[in-house]
């Protein structure tokens, strides 16, 4: 997962995606191209009409789409630093609780979106870094 990007052909049509709670989303091709897992799936069997995403619910998927849109629209080249700032903005605007970040990580892992994966994990590790003591970590991350 970490560094190997499969050489799947970019998709040219819009895809339909169904999330775990039954909602269907029509995803534009340029956004779907960022999701490498979808590209691989379509490369293998090109005639799938609807792609099921069993582990991702609608709320998470909408955030994923939002991120993909931000990446597509951003004029700055995507390196570690700019991804960090973009993600922080996204978190500030749309994410209310921490579990959304976790779900985003899992979604990025599943869909194989490298930019989102890097940004979310970096964000979490920055938060861990900010903690001064073990008790802080226990409290913030709610870990026993």
């Amino acid at each position: 997962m970490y560094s190997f990007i499969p050489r799947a052909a970019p998709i040219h049509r819009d895809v339909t995606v169904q999330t775990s709670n039954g909602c269907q989303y029509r995803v534009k091709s340029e956004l779907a191209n960022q999701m490498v897992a979808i590209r691989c799936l379509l490369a293998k069997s090109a005639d799938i009409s609807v792609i099921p995403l069993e582990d991702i619910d609608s709320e998470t998927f909408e955030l994923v789409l939002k991120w993909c849109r931000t990446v597509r629209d951003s004029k700055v080249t995507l390196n570690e630093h700019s991804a960090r700032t973009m993600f922080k903005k996204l978190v500030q605007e749309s994410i209310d609780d921490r579990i959304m970040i976790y779900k985003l990580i899992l979604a990025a892992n599943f869909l194989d979106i490298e930019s989102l994966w890097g940004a979310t994990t970096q964000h979490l590790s920055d938060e861990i870094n900010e903690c001064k003591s073990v008790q802080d970590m226990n409290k913030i991350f709610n870990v026993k």
Partner: protein
Amino acid sequence: MACNVNYYNVASGSSSSTSLLSSSTSESNVNLNYLPDEILEFIFTYLPPYGDLEHCSLVCKRWQAIVKNLVRRAKLNLEKGLSDFRLRWEIFNQQPSSSGSATGGSIIAGRFAHSAVRQGNSMYVFGGGSSSDTTFNDLWRFDLTHMRWARPVATGTYPSPKGSASMVAWRDQLVLFGGWRYPSLHPPYQPWCLFDELHFYDLGKNRWLLRSSLSCPPPMAGHSATVHGDRMVVFGGYQIKDDVNVNSNDTWVLDLNEQRWYQPLFVGNTRPSPRYGQIQIELDKNHLIVVGGCGGANRVYTDAWLLDMSRDVWSWKALAVRNKKFGAVHMWCNPGCKVNNFLVVVGPSPTMPQDFQMMKHHRVPMAGGRGPPPNQNHPLQNQLRIPDRRAADGQIGGLAPLRLGGAAAAPGGARAGGNLAPGEQYLANRRVILNQNMQQAQQFMHNNNVNNNNNNNINYQPRSGRLIDLHAPTLPRPLNPAPPAAIPPAPVPADGDVDAAQRLQRNLALRCRDNEPRLPKRFDELYEDPFRMAAFNVHTRSRSASRDHSERIRRMEEKMNAIRNSRRSAPAIAAAVAAAPAAEPQAVAALRAPSPKRLRCNVQSLFVCDISKILQSNDTDPGLDWVEYRNFGVLNGAPDRLILSSLIAGNGELILFGGVHKETLTDITHHVSNSIHFLSVPRDII
């Protein structure tokens, strides 16, 4: 600054939401353990592997298991990276006054020949030579968790200033022994000082203690020491024995509990030849190996010896060194350290053609930024170039200094026009300072010549060249022949005939090629001679000063590039770094103009040696195997070629600090470094 604000808002937002969380019923059990193990492990890899990771392992049992796994994997990755030469260098330079109060405080001054040791999550650095012929006696601590220098306030009997002392860690103390120091200038013409002081530094109480015992080793410097159980074993070094300066191959052992020295008994007469500057590595409680070292001018060793301490009577055994052509060169002024089953040495790149070679073939106009050529092409281009060099051998030797000077001046000139970026402004300032230094130097020399009657060598090298005397001990007396017997006694050319002196240098260098078959045949001015043949360097001073001047400028530019390309920032100032992006992209664009190929040939290389087979009992021929390098051991972001720096092992990485540019040792102000370089596995390869 804007990003900082955003971040804090997010953090406070999250913490207020966690309080909401605990009150809500459905999500009350959500926590970071929601994520699977592998993802958590990946998140932890972002953390600096020192204090923060330790904190994480204390949080809960699951995290502890994950951290343990991570540490194990990091170790394996480093070993794999070492044998595949797939690592990268990152530089760390703590800025003294940036980002407000977060990184306030003093930072360490640049130094070389210091002693460094790692204890816990900190690196301790002591002493060393400075940039201007003085020696330090300060102890600094670099906190690896927060990436910050701090200076512990110590009490007790402070050690004298010293460099090339040995410092090891034992329990919670640091043991410091030996060393040399620059002579003080008043009264003038004092000899070098070597020390036999033994100091203990208690880390808990921050106190220095001086220990003296009846039977004490002679004063020495450049020796090596390791700790085995409760003993510290010291070997070799440059010593004063019966009023004579000599290299030694004696072994002294200090019982650390009783603080008593003794000399062990040996079986037989085989011993390593006398040397200093060697690398000594602890294999286990009863074995150590000694690699390399220097036995005087033109006697650089690349052999390895094993000391077996398991019985009452100890024995030395010579080890076979295989794959010597991939071995490190100059293992006496370059540091090495042990990483599990490997010995890692940093040193000058081997057969890479010299700077001006590159410029001859690939010097493209400076202003158009050419993208960095891909790595794969590089060895191929080297091969293409080498036959070319041999063909043109005769001419290039004579042209060497001129071409270097000319080409080096060109990039500075090409970029001087127009608005100066902050980097260039710094360089311009630096040029002014260097000019002033040079004028002062010339003034000093002139005064010296006028005032003194006896034509001693010492006059012409007023305050520098002492370190060189250390390495070629008989040179201060002009009548004694210099150590290589074939060379005529040191003539002091009465006229400042620069070319004759340079030709003499080159011829002398040619006679000592057998020790260094890998070095280019004739392009030695940069490389060998200024350091070894101090006496002959005398009248090339004015010329070399201007050449070194432009060298230094170019090196500074390369350094800025290295900083731009590979920066490692402390976690606390990561936000600050993010907040100052405005200057960076433009500076990157402006400074990327020099072709990256030029960067690579003036940098350190990595040499890796497999030492796992030494202690295996079923091996009839134990020895060291040098690992074949890729791209001459040059890795991304490699630091400049410095000597007398220190290399210690961190958690899953190697830490290089300090050092001096060898070519500047004959100048009034040496170019020393105070930046830290980390050698680690790049993230993507995980």
